[in-house]
C-alpha cells in the first residue's frame, strides 16, 4: 500500500472514530472512548521503551508530572491551555533528558530498578511537597481545556481531544518504526554491539527514544488531569507502568496496532467492572501470566500467525 493510501486509510478510520460518540449517544461509552484513547497514547509510549529492550517504571511519574504540571501552569500561572498543556509535556521531556543522561548508562534489570526508584521518589514528592502539589489530596478543580475563549465542557469534545492525542501518538510511533530511526531502534535491541560497530551512537538514540516516550506520557498525563479535573498522587504510581506493560504484552509489542488492540481489549474492563475492580486486576494478572507463557507475541502475533496460516503458509 502506498504511503498516500495508508495515510488516507488512517484518516478515514480517525474520522469514523470521531463521529462515533455522536452516533452512539452514550456518555458511558464516550467515557470509555476517552480512556481507551489516553491509554493507547500511554501504552505506545511504553512500547517505544520495550522496542529498545528496556522497561521504564518512571512512566507513571512522567504522566503525573504532566498532569500536575499542566494543571499548575493553568491554575497558578494563569497560562492558557495550549501553553500549559505543551509546556508541561516539554518540561517532562526535559526532565527525562536530564534523568536519561545518567540513567541510560545503566542497562538491563538495574535500569528498571532505577526508574522504579525514581518513580517512587516523584510520587512521594507529590505527597510530601504539599504547598506545590497539594499533598495526598492533590489538586482539585483543574480547569477544563480550551483555547481562544472556547472551553471544552462536554465529554464528546474531550473525546475528540483524546482521539487527536491517540492519533498523534499512533501516527508518530508508526512513522518512527517504519523509518530508518525504527531500524536503528530495533537493531539496538537485537544486537547492540553490532549496531555500535556500524557507527550508531547508541546512547544518543536511547536518550532520544526515552525523551519522546516521556513526551507522550506527559501529554497523556496532562490530558488525563484536565479530564478528571482532579490530580492525585496515587493515580501516578507504580501501577501505571505495570498496566502499560500488561497492555503491550497482551496486545503484542511488535507493531503499534498490537498496542491499540491491547488497549481496546483491556481498558474497558475496569470501567465495566467498576464495582469489582479486583476482579479486573485478577483478570489482568491471569491474562498476563497466560500470555507470557503461551503467547509472548501477544494478540497481534497470534493474528499474524493466523493470517499467514490462512494464506497457505507463504514465507
Amino acid at each position: 500500500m502506498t504511503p498516500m493510501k495508508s495515510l488516507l486509510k488512517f484518516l478515514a478510520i480517525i474520522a469514523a472514530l470521531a463521529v462515533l460518540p455522536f452516533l452512539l449517544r452514550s456518555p458511558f461509552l464516550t467515557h470509555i472512548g476517552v480512556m481507551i484513547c489516553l491509554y493507547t497514547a500511554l501504552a505506545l509510549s511504553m512500547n517505544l521503551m520495550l522496542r529498545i529492550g528496556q522497561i521504564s517504571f518512571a512512566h507513571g511519574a512522567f504522566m503525573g508530572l504532566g498532569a500536575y504540571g499542566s494543571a499548575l501552569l493553568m491554575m497558578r500561572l494563569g497560562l492558557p491551555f495550549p501553553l500549559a498543556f505543551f509546556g508541561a509535556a516539554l518540561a517532562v521531556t526535559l526532565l527525562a533528558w536530564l534523568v536519561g543522561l545518567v540513567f541510560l548508562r545503566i542497562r538491563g534489570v538495574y535500569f528498571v530498578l532505577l526508574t522504579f526508584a525514581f518513580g517512587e521518589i516523584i510520587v512521594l514528592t507529590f505527597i510530601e511537597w504539599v504547598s506545590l502539589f497539594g499533598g495526598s489530596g492533590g489538586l482539585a478543580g483543574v480547569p477544563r481545556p480550551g483555547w481562544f475563549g472556547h472551553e471544552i465542557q462536554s465529554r464528546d469534545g474531550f473525546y475528540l481531544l483524546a482521539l487527536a492525542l491517540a492519533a498523534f501518538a499512533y501516527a508518530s510511533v508508526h512513522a518512527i518504526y517504519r523509518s530508518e530511526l525504527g531500524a536503528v531502534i530495533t537493531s539496538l535491541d537485537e544486537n547492540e554491539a553490532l549496531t555500535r560497530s556500524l557507527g550508531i551512537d547508541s546512547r544518543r538514540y536511547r536518550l532520544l527514544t526515552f525523551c519522546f516516550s516521556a513526551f507522550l506520557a506527559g501529554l497523556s498525563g496532562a490530558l488525563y488531569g484536565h479530564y478528571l479535573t482532579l490530580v492525585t498522587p496515587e493515580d501516578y504510581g507504580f501501577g501505571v507502568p505495570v498496566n502499560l506493560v500488561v497492555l503491550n504484552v497482551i496486545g503484542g509489542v511488535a507493531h503499534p496496532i498490537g498496542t491499540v488492540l491491547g488497549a481496546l481489549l483491556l481498558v474497558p474492563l475496569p470501567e465495566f467492572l467498576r464495582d469489582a475492580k479486583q476482579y479486573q486486576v485478577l483478570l489482568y494478572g491471569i491474562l498476563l501470566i497466560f500470555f507470557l507463557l503461551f503467547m509472548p507475541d501477544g494478540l497481534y502475533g497470534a493474528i499474524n500467525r493466523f493470517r499467514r496460516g490462512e494464506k497457505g503458509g507463504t514465507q
Partner: protein
Amino acid sequence: MSEVVLEVAGLTKAFGGLRAVSDLSFSTFRGEILGIIGPNGSGKTTLFNLITGVFPATSGSVRFRGNPMSGLQTDAIARLGLVRTFQSATVFKHEPVYENIRRGSMFGCIGNPAWFFRRGRVAAGASKARTTAEDLLEFSGLADVAGTLAGNLPYGKQKMLGVAIALAQHPLQLLMDEPAAGLNPSETEAMGEFIAQIRSKRGIDVILVEHDMRMVTSMCDRILALNYGKVIAIDVPAKIVAHPEVIEAYLGADFE
C-alpha cells in the same frame, strides 16, 4: 615511504595489578595487511578492545590517520573509518542479507540522531546504502542469498556477511577479530581470498588478529607477535616464523 595509518605508542592497560598490555608501540602503513598473533592471554584481545574503544587505556596513545583516539567510543571510531568485525558471526539474524548490508551503510550516515534533521542527508544516505548493498552483494559472493534471512545462512556465509556489513561503511581500515574462527578449511580459504581482494580491489587496509597461522603467513605483509602483553617482534612472515622468541612463545600452544 607509505603514510602511517594506525599508530600505537606506549600503549598500556592494567586491570588492577595485572598488566594486560605493556608499552605497546607499532604502526601500520597505507596499503598493508598486518597480522597480530599471540598465544591466549598475550593481550591480543585487550589490544583489539583498546583500539576499538571498548575501554580506555591506562597510558599511551592510539592515533588513526593522525587523529588521537583516546576516549572515543566504538561508534565514533567506526565513523572515523576504522571498522571492526567480530570473532563469532554477528549479523542481524531476523533480517535478509540485503538489509543487513544496507544497514551497514545506512547506519554510518545516521550515527548521530541529530543528522536526521540535516536536509537531504537521510535521502542521500538511503540511496547510497542501496547502491552499496547491491555492489557488496556481488563483491562478497552473497548475491544469490540476498533475500535469505541472515540467521538461516550457514555459519561460513554468516561470517562473510559480517565482513560485508563492515565494508558497507566504506572503511579506510578494517580491524578483523579472528576472521577464520569457526570456519572449516574451504571456508577459511574463501575468507582469505576475500580479505586479499578487499585490499587489492578496494584499497582498504586490514589488521587481522588471528590464530590460524597458515592464513596469517600467506596473507599478511607483516606480522606483529605478542606475548605477555608485550611486542616480541614485528616483521615479515618469513622472519617471524623463524624468530626464536616467537617459536618459544608458541611451544605447546596452537600452531596450525
